[in-house]
Structures are given as structure tokens and as C-alpha cells.
């Protein structure tokens, strides 16, 4: 009998919730349907913060759900928006994860 992967459940749940928040936020802020090369300030902040937070160990592994919530905000933004922010955040997260793996923690 397989155990429920609760840690992954929290991560995915917070990613989805972050996506909802991001979608609601970007639909309220922007009117144009599809714009390329636009960078949203709050999306950028949440993306970078999420990327940085991903590899900072906190008690109960709470950093993963928190960082995925913040990364979910640019992920869920309406089509065309939040692209650069998401790529930046995810690359910071991957980089941090690799560095943490190299250090050995």
C-alpha cells in the first residue's frame, strides 16, 4: 500500500492557488489580451522571491509550498504576461537547488 505523498500534495495545491491569484491579479490589472515583452513588477518580485526561497531550508519543509505559491503567480498570469518572470524565477530556483546539492545539504 503506497503512502499519500502529502508534501507533494501541499506543493501542487499551493502552486494551483498561486496560479489563481496570479490570474485574478493580471486580469484586474491588464486590459490588452496579448502583449509581448511586458514585465510586471509584482510578478517579477514574486518570481524572484519564489526562486530564492526554493532552496532556503525552513522548518517542516515549508519553503517548497511557499516558493511554489510565489512561482505560481507568474505561472497563472493571463496569456502572454508573466513569461519572463516565470523563466527567471524557475532558473533561479534550479540554480539554487544545484548549488545546494553541490554544497551537500
Amino acid at each position: 500500500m503506497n503512502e499519500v505523498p502529502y508534501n507533494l500534495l501541499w506543493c501542487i495545491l499551493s502552486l494551483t492557488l498561486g496560479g489563481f491569484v496570479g490570474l485574478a491579479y493580471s486580469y484586474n490589472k491588464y486590459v490588452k489580451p496579448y502583449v509581448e515583452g511586458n514585465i510586471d513588477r509584482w510578478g517579477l518580485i514574486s518570481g524572484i522571491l519564489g526562486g530564492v526561497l526554493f532552496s532556503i531550508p525552513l522548518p517542516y519543509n515549508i519553503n517548497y509550498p511557499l516558493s511554489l505559491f510565489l512561482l505560481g503567480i507568474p505561472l497563472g498570469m493571463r496569456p502572454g504576461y508573466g513569461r519572463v518572470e516565470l523563466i527567471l524565477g524557475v532558473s533561479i530556483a534550479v540554480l539554487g537547488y544545484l548549488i545546494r546539492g553541490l554544497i551537500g545539504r
Partner: protein
Amino acid sequence: MELSSIKYVIDALAYSLYAFLVGGLLLGLHRKIVARIQGRPGPPVIQYILHTIKFYFKEITFPITAGNPLYLFIALMSIMVWMSALYLGVVFNTSLLILMGLYVLQKIVEHGCGLSSGSPYGKLGGVRSVFSAAAEIPLFTVIGTIYLLTKSLIIEDIIRYQEIHGPIIFQLPFAAFAFFVLLLSKAPNSPFAIVKDKSIVSGYMTEHFGLLESLIMIADGIAWFVLLWIFIAVFIGPLLVSDPLLTLVGMVVLTFLISLLCALTPLLTPNHSVMIQIIISVLALVDLLRRIIVG
């Protein structure tokens, strides 16, 4: 009153929530990738889950032509089928034959869904779902081939076999291909998705709107998770299944491959789709017979 039974119920609910969220996100990713390949921006990745939640709060009415209680019950049955498949397959690792039976029940769901609604589009979708039962003949032969190799159909035993002998996908590549075609036929916009062809509006789901559609979409999300998990467990084995995170990575890769195929291939007409599936199943059958005779 036992605490353990409460824990079991909560675990079961949590697992199905997890499966739905993962399946929903993967189906959203599928839509996004298809859109990007076709040069459209595409909806956000959370769109599938968003739709499910949106439809959950919409009004339903029973159409005059609908045959109740089948019209209503079939949507509930859809969730029952895939939640049972989730628990029997993913949680308890029981027999592949039970999962196969549940997959056949899914055909009953599609058929009943279309026919109980009384709409011509729904009926056409239901009839096409019977055609596309041709996709299940490869499943029979795949199960037969796997039994010949591992001498067991219990998923746990199959995983243990692969611990010793390595992934089955290298030993039975054709069986893996036939199962992959089954996965492909379940994906939206795939060449074999004649059941949900846009030329018949939404196929069997045409008359199931609002709340009932949301229930069917929940079931479809769980179904996507379960089918991908079975493919990974049976053909790739403990390499990925032992860690849920690695399983997720495998699912994303598989969804990516399927999305590429879906975006790059045209949708076949029903007769061509059924012919191709029958050709694949005949080849799989020949493979099975060869293995039986040669030994």
C-alpha cells in the same frame, strides 16, 4: 468508531485530490504545448482546473430528452470508476486485469453518457466511443505479453520483476508502443480522439453541462494521472515509481511527448482511426503469438 478508518478515508480523499490536481495541471500543460506549437499563446496551465471549478458552480437542468436517472448517474459513475482505478492501481498495486475491467467500464460511461442525453451529437459521440473500443484490443495483447514475460499480472510483482531485470520497455518495446497508443487515444486533440471530435460539438459530453460536466472533468483529470502512472509503473518500473517526485517528472515528459504528437498529427476520421488501431492490435497479437510459439 475507529481512528484508523478516519485516517484511511482522509488519505483516500487526499490521494484523489492529488491525482486530480496533477492530472488537471498536466492536461492544462498539454493544451498549452499544443497551442504553442500551433503558434497561439494558449490558455494558462491552470485552465483545466479553473474550468472544473467554474463549471462546478454553474446551474444544471435536466433536458426533456434526457433519460434519467442514467443521465445523472453516469457522471457520478465516471468519478467512481477512475477513483477506484486510482486506489486499486496506484495505492494498492493490484492486478492489471481489474484496471482493464475498469477501463472497459469507462467505455460504458462514455456510451451511456452519450445515449442517455438524447442529443444527436451525444449519440454520435457514444457510437464513436463503441468504435474506438478497437483501442482496447492492444490492451488485451499487451497484458498477455506482459504475463508471458513476468508470469504475473499483479502490478507489485511486475515492479519487483523490473527491479531485477530492468525496465520492461526495453524487453517489450512493441507492447509499450501499443500501450502508448492507448494513452494517445485518451488524450484530447489526439489523432485517435474521435470521441471528442469537434465536428460533433463535444462528443458524448455535449448535453452534460455545468455541474455534471465538472464531475466528468474531475474524472478525466484523475484518469490522466492513473493512465500515465500505469504506463510508468508497468514499463519503466521502480526507476521512477519508487519516488513520487520522479514519477511526476516522468508524467510531465510523457505528457510532453503526447502533446507533440497531438499537435503535429491531424485528427483521423473514425474509419481510419479504427483501422490504424486494429493494425496495431494485429501486430501486437502477432508479437504475442510469436512469443507463445517460440517461448
